[in-house]
């Protein structure tokens, strides 16, 4: 974490765990001061980590106001680049075998497992939690990848059908991915909410342009680093940090975005997003009626893990063929 050392933790458990390290640090300090190598939080587009082409950034602070890092204030152009990368990656990702896609996504969980501590610290900082409270959120996020990854080779059997038409035809319906999906990530839950929205369109075979939480974007950036080192091909997930007021209208109006997940769209933008999406008949997956982003309990598996959220980014294709000789 960029400013980890300046943030009061008040976290006995975490402190206990890091005692050894702290002692070592102190010992080192007496020898020579070790200056932390801070991370630059960048965008993730087409498998690379560019800074925003706009050269802008914005200060991301912890809940208590402690500055954490400068994040890229992504631009319209960044979003367009991300959509282009997602479009380019779509045919390859969509044509992966279902089992392969499941394995690739499961591998994301494996890699996150190895970075549990880092994610816990970042989520704690982003969401103003003690690290021991953030840890279960990270674990749940990892488990959610596993849950969704397992759907890859099952969803077609659950949602597809063979249709008993009243004439001599073989007729079946299979789901196919919609295409490029724009996700406006939940604003509140920086990692678990994010993963819960990201995994369903991915497991369906879509590629994604993700607009992160505006106030809590850093765990999303770290997740993009996990994705970059996983087997998820470049361009399948593209991550843009920045101001939702700037980015959301652009992604909602982009005609090469086939579907939108509007969970994290600020209420004030909701109608405009729907209006813009109407222009190209975008599919919209929205927060269920009466659900508030800030109050949604992402740890409730029954509420937060739904095959319908995979189905929201699938198109049903029906094929007919005559039965004859």
């Amino acid at each position, binding site marked *: 974490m960029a400013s980890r050392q300046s943030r009061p933790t008040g976290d006995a458990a975490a402190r206990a765990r890091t005692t050894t390290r702290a002692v070592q640090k102190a010992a080192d300090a007496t020898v020579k001061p070790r200056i932390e190598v801070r991370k630059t939080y960048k965008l993730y587009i087409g498998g690379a980590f560019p800074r925003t082409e706009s050269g802008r950034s914005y200060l991301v602070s912890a809940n208590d106001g402690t500055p954490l890092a400068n994040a890229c204030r992504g631009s319209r152009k960044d979003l367009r680049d991300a959509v282009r990368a997602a479009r380019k990656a779509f045919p390859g990702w969509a044509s992966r075998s279902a089992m392969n896609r499941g394995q690739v996504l499961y591998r994301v969980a494996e890699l996150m497992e190895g970075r549990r501590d880092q994610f816990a610290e970042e989520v704690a900082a982003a969401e103003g939690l003690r690290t021991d409270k953030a840890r279960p959120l990270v674990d749940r996020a990892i488990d959610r990848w596993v849950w969704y990854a397992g759907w890859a080779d099952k969803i077609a059997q659950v949602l597809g059908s063979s249709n*008993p038409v*009243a004439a001599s035809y073989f007729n079946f*319906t299979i789901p196919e991915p*919609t295409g490029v999906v724009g996700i406006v990530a939940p604003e509140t839950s920086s990692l678990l909410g994010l993963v819960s929205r990201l995994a369903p369109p991915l497991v369906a075979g879509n590629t994604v342009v993700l607009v992160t939480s505006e106030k809590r974007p850093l765990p999303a950036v770290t997740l993009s680093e996990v994705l970059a080192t996983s087997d998820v091909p470049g361009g399948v997930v593209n991550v843009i940090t920045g101001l939702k007021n700037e980015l959301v209208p652009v992604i909602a109006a982009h005609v090469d975005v086939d579907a939108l997940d509007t969970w994290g769209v600020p209420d004030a933008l909701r109608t405009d997003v*729907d209006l813009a999406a109407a222009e190209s008949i975008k599919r919209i997956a929205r927060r269920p009626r009466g659900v508030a982003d800030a109050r949604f309990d992402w740890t409730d598996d029954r509420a937060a893990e739904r095959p319908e959220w995979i189905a929201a980014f699938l*198109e049903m294709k029906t094929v007919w063929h005559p039965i004859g000789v």
Partner: protein
Amino acid sequence: MPDVTSETKLQRTGERAVQRTGSGSSPSSWGLGDGQAIPWEYAPAPESREIVTIKERYGLFINGREVDAVDGATFGTVNPATEETLAQVAKATPADADKAVRAARKAQRYSWGQLPGRERAKYLFRIARILQERSREFAVLESMDSGKPIKESRDVDVPLVAAHFWYYAGWADKLDYAFPGRVARPLGVAAQIIPWNFPLLMLAWKIAPALAAGNTVVLKPASTTPLSALLFADVCRQADLPPGTVNIVTGPGSIGMHLVTHPGIDKVAFTGSTDVGKKIARGVAGTDKGLTLELGGKAANIVFEDAALDQAVEGIVNGIYFNQGEVCCAGSRLLAQESIVEPLIEKLKDRLSTIRVGDPLDKNTDVGAINSKAQLEKITELVESGKAEGADFYQPACDLPERGYFFRPTLFTNVAQSHRIAQEEIFGPVLSVLTFRTPDEAVEKANNTPYGLSAGIWTEKGSRILSMATKMKAGVVWANTFNQFDPTSPFGGYKESGYGREGGMHGLHAYVRLEDR
């Protein structure tokens, strides 16, 4: 499903009269299709209109009763084959639509919405049975009001209408099995806006799943084809359907938009043009209303060199001349592999010469009347653009009735992808022929459109069918067939052809809210 061509078993006899005409036609660039017609006279075989009694005046169907519009206004509905006004129909005002929404809400809350699924099922079965019993009456009325051939309304539309109610009737008490692990609750009141090309069939596609899931509906038929919906109101009465369960308001498009934006509506279902679909999507913006859209199309019908050409020709004809081409999933772009394009066009031109255009109520008619003057003008305008942009124009010789809105089956060859007739939905009996060399090129051309409703593939090679079917960005793919429909078979589009599916188990999804068990 019987189609425009199924009963045609022509014997080729006698001398063949050369009939390559059609206004402004130029000789085919292929130099092969001789367009020679077989002199085959058909005696008139009119279906009797006696079976249906058309009233002078129809009211709205609200809360189980036929009522006039509050201001008493009406509009005429025209038989497009004769241009005679068939009846005056109530022209709903926003106040009437409000009444209909209130009636639907009341029924959803207190009667229909309270019925157990197995009781809803019995009502829907009843409706299916009554539709079967009165099938000829509906077929004749539908042909008179819409212009479609009696052969199609009798053998396709009306049987499918009954079948849809039958199919969804059985779902009403089995929703738990359609959504395992979840409880399916009705959304509430659905506003359903349907087009004029399949007036009664679209009514069935909309109303049957909505009622099965426990919703009530306010249906707005197209303003040029209100009569079969109003006759359906009589079926609802005969079935003793609780008042308010089905409400039908006739009127202009503005009444449809009034319903779309009405705060008392929970779900909007629309079938029609992509332009209007976008307006409707804007109309529900910012609300929690459910929305399904079944919009336009510009389907590619792809014929490979190894296809059974005679079958392909029948499929092409069925694909674009069925229902005068006024079909959202019509195969309006023929993509022919270069090596067989000449014999294919020749066969197609021969086949076109046997198509009978005329009185929709004549049982021998293949292509009836265009639905309205406005639609005829739109088709004419696009056909003129095709000529102006340089495609080769062909029409078979055939006499058109003196009155009524008719258009000859039309074929354009040498069409470029940039031509309007290759890009825009014509919604008429006009086929644009393009060519390709490789399967990849066929895929690219087929998908080169904002639409994505349907596609056709003609080849004898099974693995190619499956690979092409996978690559088509289209919701329905017909392989070695075209324009087949069935209540169990989900139908709907990719891309700007809309979202949501109608038909099958998938069709239920648009009318339910899923809750935890």
